[in-house]
């Protein structure tokens, strides 16, 4: 249990912050460098998988925040993706602005949906919250299916294609930085405290409803971004892409990655997105093997792929456990 202590680096220094910004800038530059100099020469299939992983990362980081850190059991994450996707698509179809502006609008639309869903429902707990968010997911799909402007069940087609490697991973880096910084800040502590003991947190004068709604909205925003990117990836979107099974898929990624970890779910998002591709040779037995592996991984790594840790923990020298009772 000694290693239960979270790896939150104690006070954040100005120097560390500046270094962080520098690293971020370098990473963005690297992404665009790859986009311009490597992607055109890379197997498009590989690029395709990588981009799909990128979109999964964005969806997963939001749920990792909501479920893994704040402890709110949401089963409707795909609903927020749908809101983002359709908002972005409508922007792009009707405004003539750059699709990435549409993606941003999609994020905000999903965030608004997050407030609408979150405010009333976050006073529910556990499985009750799960059912309500699941219901929200269902409602969104029905509304889209019945809205002729949104193409109904036939979906929207003829969207501009803009989700490139560069853009996807620019968003991934932005999202990753945002959520990581949020989690390692005072707000992150509050999120985790909500998960651990709401009553105690309220007795400290912290507005837990607000904290939950904030987590929910931030999670929804990044899901919306993922949805917006998806809309501009293959020129078409369909309501069937955002159904309950998609929410479940994202949930599985978060849990397999480990609740209370950010990089764990990101890793598992990559693994679970790539796994079906790896399993292609077995054709129709693919899902059988996929589910067997999912069960196996869950049993063998019950604390998540990284055992509840962050990737960085494996590189950091941890203080030796000098645990002695007082």
């Amino acid at each position, binding site marked *: 249990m000694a290693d239960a202590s979270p790896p939150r680096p104690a006070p954040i220094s100005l120097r560390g912050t500046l270094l962080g910004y520098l690293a971020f800038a370098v990473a963005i530059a690297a992404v665009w460098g790859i986009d311009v100099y490597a992607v055109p020469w890379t*197997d*498009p*299939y*590989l690029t*395709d*998988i990588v981009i*799909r992983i990128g979109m999964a990362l964005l969806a997963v980081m939001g749920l990792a925040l909501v479920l893994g850190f704040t402890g709110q059991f949401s089963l409707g994450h795909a609903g927020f993706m749908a809101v983002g996707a359709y908002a972005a698509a409508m922007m792009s179809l009707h405004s003539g602005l750059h699709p990435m502006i549409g993606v941003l609008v999609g994020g905000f639309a999903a965030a608004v949906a997050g407030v609408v869903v979150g405010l009333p429902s976050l006073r529910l707990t556990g499985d009750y919250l799960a059912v309500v968010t699941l219901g929200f997911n269902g409602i969104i799909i*029905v509304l889209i*299916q*019945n809205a002729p402007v949104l193409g*109904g*069940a*036939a*979906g929207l*087609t003829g969207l501009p*294609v803009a989700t490139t490697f560069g853009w996807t991973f620019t968003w991934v880096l932005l999202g990753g930085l945002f959520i990581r910084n949020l989690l390692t800040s005072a707000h992150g502590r509050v999120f985790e405290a909500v998960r651990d003991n709401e009553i105690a947190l309220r007795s400290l004068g912290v507005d837990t409803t607000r904290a939950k709604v904030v987590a929910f909205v931030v999670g929804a925003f990044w899901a919306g971004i993922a949805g917006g990117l*998806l809309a501009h*990836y*293959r*020129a*078409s979107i*369909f*309501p*069937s*892409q955002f159904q309950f099974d998609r929410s479940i898929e994202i949930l599985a990624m978060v849990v397999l990655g480990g609740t209370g970890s950010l990089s764990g779910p990101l890793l598992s998002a990559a693994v679970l997105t790539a796994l*079906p*591709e790896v399993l*292609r040779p077995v*054709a*129709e037995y*693919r*899902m059988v093997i996929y589910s067997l592996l999912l069960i196996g991984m869950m049993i063998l790594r019950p604390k998540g792929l990284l055992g509840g840790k962050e990737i960085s923990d494996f590189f950091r020298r941890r203080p030796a456990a000098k645990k002695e009772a007082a």
Partner: protein
Amino acid sequence: SGGAPETKEIVIGQYGSLTGGAATFGLSTKNGIEIATEEQNAAGGIAGVPIRMVLEDDASKPEEAATTVSKLLSRDRPVAILGEVASSSSLAAAPLAQAAGVPMISPSSTSPKVTQVGDYIFRVCFIDPFQGTAAAQFAYNTKGVRTVAVLTDVKSDYSVGLAQYFKETFVSLGGTIIAEEAYSANDIDFKAQLTNIVSKNPDAIFVPGYYTETGLIARDARGGGYKGILLGGDGWDSEQLVGIGQDAIIGGFYTNHYSVDDPSPVVQDFIKKYQAKYGTKPDGLAALGYDSAKILYQSMTEVAKNPAHAAAFADRSAVPATEGARKAARAALRDELARVKNFPGVTGTITIDKDRNAEKPAVVVEVTKDGPRFVESISPGGSTAPAPTGTEGAAPADGAAAPAVAPAEAAAPPVEAVPAAAK
């Protein structure tokens, strides 16, 4: 063809739903294609080179469909691609094939939008507007139906589209839609909707859904006391239909791509082969899969008469020098596909029109205890049902009794509107 690999082969890509919600449709299609490929290889492949089919599963998800096509294009470098059943998946993947200049034939995506993606995208099935029109004409003209209730699967773009086109034509013919209800795929209970419908007592209920639900719908309709006509589309086509719907579905009618009791040798031959290999009678999707592959192979054989193209077909090397040749061969294939005329398919005589859609008749069949029974054939546009090669794909089984209902005006199945046709 000096630098060609030692074992020469021609690669064709195929993607479909082998897992996930639409798996059963994908598997049928795959079976049909497999038979066509075996036949072709038994007959020496294309210009003596065997065909190798590379099959990818898209788990019934549109974005994965695009991934599979991306994989096919970059790894397997196929001459052409077959797929998908679901229009959404075809729509997601088609832009890739179009961009790569690889002909793609969808066996059974009926949404008009699919072939609009570009000039490399074809299909061998009729499109929803035509099928909806055909069903409406059958109902209004042949059965004298004047009032209809429509029960749509709102989750399915196929069902919604078909219902839409049916309603438009039926109303323009002078009929009335007196009730519109909806359900979702996978529902098991339809009594609420049918209680409403039955209370209005329409002449017919149009159920443009899949057999998985329509059998149950028929049971709930008859159970609720409904005595009128049950009508549907090609989604009804399955050996299981009667097993599910039992007595309730008997006497229902649906439009389809072909009829198993069509005596023409093309059809019977296919059914025999299919049954020998898979133990069941082929459904419409299997037949369409078969036809899509047959048309592809016929066109390829034609193109391969040019030795340069033949060599390019069999060559998968990525050398830029050969890339041009491959491109040219595929362009020739595209042109050849666009020229297909009166192809004697299992699903009727197929002509590819200028929008790369299949111009072909629909058949109306009646559900009987012994399987579907041919009722009539409905041709698109003003064209008469052609029967050139002695294989009367669409010939009425029981003689000329059944009239070929033809719309008054010729209209190539247009893109967004229904054939303004029938009025």
